[in-house]
């Protein structure tokens, strides 16, 4: 009983101890660099986080092309879930290694030539094919800004960079249907509020036919696989480029998609 109470009171205490800015002291009265936990960090008060969460949710619904708003929503609402994810990663040996070494997936860290030379069916080759076919690049992920912990900011960044891996694992393209399926998978796997909101509100813009396919086949498949699979953030993808995709899917108990989702032409 006491531990339960402590668990509830701890976040409340954190909120109360955060100083409210006095009238004459500006929010960022520090010179450049100090007071920031990581280079892109923007410190925010709880009120600002609440306003950002509400504003970004509204804007993301109003203008679906504002991907940065979805990112901001994730950062401002995910503080508790990120902690849970981080603890989960610490408990897993591969996850703990990722937290320690902090690998990043970006064009500067990937050796595209080596990936292209890998055999067909391997994770690296299929990932590269996914990037080429859908004409996306791993560098379009916005950096984390509003998370007030350096380690949690990395967990958030890793989640974003692993998103493309999930597309490859699930075999989903980057159109709206594919994105929603991946979001459902992520929502069940990570529990991030932003994923849950996107999964629930994303299908609003779909046509009736797509919606029917989504609800009857794709979502149940995604949810089933997400519950069976271990946490996808625990995989050190950079060390698994040569692993055949089929073997990786088997390891994660991910089955083939029930139908082929047409990608961009």
């Amino acid at each position: 009983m006491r531990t339960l109470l402590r668990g509830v009171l701890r976040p409340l205490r954190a909120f109360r101890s955060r100083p409210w800015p006095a009238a004459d002291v500006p929010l960022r009265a520090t010179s450049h660099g100090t007071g920031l936990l990581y280079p892109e960090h923007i410190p925010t008060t709880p009120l600002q986080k609440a306003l950002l969460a509400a504003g970004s949710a509204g804007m993301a619904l109003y203008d679906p092309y504002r991907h940065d708003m979805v990112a901001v929503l994730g950062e401002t609402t995910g503080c508790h879930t990120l902690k849970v994810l981080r603890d989960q990663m610490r408990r897993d040996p591969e996850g703990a290694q990722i937290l320690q070494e902090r690998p990043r997936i970006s064009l500067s860290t990937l050796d595209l030539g080596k990936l292209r030379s890998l055999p067909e069916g391997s994770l690296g080759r299929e990932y590269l094919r996914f990037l080429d076919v859908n004409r996306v690049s791993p560098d379009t992920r916005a950096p984390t800004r509003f998370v007030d912990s350096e380690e949690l900011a990395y967990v958030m960044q890793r989640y974003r960079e692993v998103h493309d891996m999930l597309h490859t694992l699930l075999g989903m393209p980057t159109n709206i249907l594919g994105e929603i399926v991946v979001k459902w998978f992520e929502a069940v796997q990570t529990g991030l509020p932003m994923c849950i909101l996107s999964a629930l509100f994303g299908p609003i813009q779909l046509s009736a036919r797509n919606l029917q396919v989504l609800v009857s086949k794709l979502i149940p498949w995604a949810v089933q696989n997400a519950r069976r699979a271990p946490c996808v953030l625990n995989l050190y993808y950079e060390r698994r480029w040569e692993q055949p995709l089929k073997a990786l899917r088997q390891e994660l108990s991910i089955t083939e998609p029930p139908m082929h989702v047409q990608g961009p032409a």
Partner: protein
Amino acid sequence: MAAPRSWGLWSFCCRGWSRVLPGCRLPGLRSSWPRGPLGARPLSQEKRATETHFRFETVSEEEKRGKVYQVFESVAKKYDMMNDMMSLGIHRIWKDLLLWKMRPFPGTQLLDVAGGTGDIAFRFLNYVQAQHQRKEKRQLRAQQNLSWEEIAKKYQNEEDSLGGSHVMVCDINKEMLKIGKQKARAQGYKAGLAWVLGDAEELPFDDDKFDVYTIAFGIRNVTHIDRALQEAHRVLKPGGRFLCLEFSQVNNPLVSRLYDVYSFQVIPVLGEVIAGDWKSYQYLVESIRQFPSQEEFKEMIEDAGFQKVTYENLTSGIVAIHSGFKL
């Protein structure tokens, strides 16, 4: 409202250093320096990397100019919409009040500095056009019995609907001027309007050229406010008026608290959600806090040579209109 330490540095930057560096910025030397076609005189080698403020950071003066340029380059497209959102439309009333204080008559030559998107210029054109039309109506009513030849002549004349008024919009930022020109085209403003790229600290105009000089929400972004004021004094005709609309210090403690909470908590969030740019709007609220108070700014205007300097607080001092004359 600014902290004492930063005010000390501020006054050092603004007033002290021009006396500290001998021979570099004496007024007598100014006219002999080569003037480029659009201002932008090359900076002297002897100038020290003096520190100034960009937001609450301490940066060198060259850096501030570059950073301010980048801020306005990135906000230009959404500038007007953000102004409406942040001030809940009140900025329109403030700008209208500036025009009413100015009371231009047809024939006035206005220079609007840092006037990028043209808000003041368009209001000026509307005002003088309305004045001119009223004058025409009065004239017509007085001359009811016109002969056919006189009426025909009136129709044939390419009537200047502005009565000789002209506004020159000067801004240092190309993007802001681009937006202003697009707006002018969209709203149908053609005559009496000119767009010039220039620096408020080194205006590309001759002496004694304008009747009125306005700078609305622009002077706090200038690195050397005293130089901008001196330039304003130079380009105005004798009898000309200097008008500055700028954010200032709030005099009411309750409004001040609410204003602080709104500025620091809400405005950067609005900037991020609407324009996708937190840092530019953080710069905005911090630059407002760094700007001198009404009395201090009044003294700076008097130092530049203006007389009969007065100020009027709007909205409890959130905004103030400073006015001075070159006599």
